[in-house]
């Protein structure tokens, strides 16, 4: 199980071996939508790292100190989505007041993140794997760094694709998916790194 491994392995596992986009298929809507240029991909990637780490830690605490003691595990889904949504809102207000430059850099990506399933998934997975707080933190960091890496990689390839001679019916989204499949094939190779 994941919770018996050391922190480095947990990070690697979340980062590339079980990459959130390519192996777990989460966060695809934003991935396909935003990866059309590198600049916005970097913005989104960094915003995702920031929010995932914070949101996962908060929902971990909510689950272990609020839901578990009162036997309310069945409220997990409702609680997590509300926690994440309100946290993103709260964070947006704080950043706007305290760090306007950062707020400008994040732009529209911060509110969009609420509906990014990668965030909610990392919160659920951390609970499912029964990680402790530190492991959960590293796990969230790994997942979001994996998202960031792949979206930037993909955006740089997609910019070149615009000039490539692609058959008419494959232009746009279809070729993007097929390309994602090929990168996913490469990432499948990392499975041999260690046994989970």
């Amino acid at each position, binding site marked *: 199980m994941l919770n018996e491994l050391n922190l480095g392995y947990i990070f690697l596992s979340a980062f590339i071996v079980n990459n959130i986009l390519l192996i777990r*298929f989460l966060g695809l809507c934003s991935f*396909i939508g935003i990866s059309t240029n590198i600049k916005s991909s970097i913005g989104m990637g960094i915003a995702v790292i920031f929010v995932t780490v914070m949101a996962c830690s908060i929902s971990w605490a909510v689950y272990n100190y609020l839901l578990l003691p009162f036997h309310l595990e069945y409220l997990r889904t409702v609680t997590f989505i*509300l926690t994440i*949504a309100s946290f993103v809102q709260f964070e947006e207000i704080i950043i706007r007041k305290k760090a306007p430059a950062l707020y400008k850099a994040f732009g529209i990506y911060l509110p969009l993140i609420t*509906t990014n*399933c990668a965030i909610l998934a990392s919160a*659920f997975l951390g609970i499912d794997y029964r990680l402790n707080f530190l492991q959960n933190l590293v796990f969230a960091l790994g997942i979001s760094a994996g998202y960031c890496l792949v979206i930037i990689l993909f955006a740089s390839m997609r910019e070149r694709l615009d000039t490539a001679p692609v058959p008419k019916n494959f232009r746009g989204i279809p*070729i*993007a998916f097929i390309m*994602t499949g090929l990168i996913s094939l490469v990432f499948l190779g990392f499975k041999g790194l260690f046994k989970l």
Partner: protein
Amino acid sequence: MKKIIEPKNLMLGIWKENPIFYLMLGLCPLLAVSGSLRDALGMGAAFIFVLLGSNITVSVIRKIVPAHVRIPVFIVVIATFVSVIDYSLAAFSPQLHKNLGVYLPLMVVNCILLGRAEAFASKNNVINSALDGIGMGIGFTMAILIIASIRELLGQGTLFGINMLGDNYLPFLIMIMPPGAFIVIGFLIAIKNSIGGKKKC
């Protein structure tokens, strides 16, 4: 005046505005659980249940919910139905529940559900919203079944676990692994483009 029942609302989701191939929404569960037909069917059924329930509920409460808190209210409604199906499946079909894994609770953030609640159910009456829910649900189920049958047939030579291609078939293993899902959906969208005209982005 709008008519009370418009049967075309049912058909809209199935072909013309199919949530997957036309609107490109809700892709995550589609790719993740389409490795075998059985899981795909379970996911589709769960999806129709949640979409129908949330569409009806949102449509019933649409006049009493203040406009600026409607999104959180819709999310809570959806999350409630998702929790119901999550725990029912865990009780009645533990194997399916295990196979669907984290993708079942993740239906909460599925864009189709919130999208239909916001774009359709919050503006239309209960019967039309129910029809829309069923139509969109069937559209989603159809899409996931198509992808799952291609992947299972090529990847294992079986359909619903029954051997289809004979014992000499060498499984095209990559199809049931993650890359296969991406490649199959890429080809399917290209085929849809060539039949139904290109989607305007």
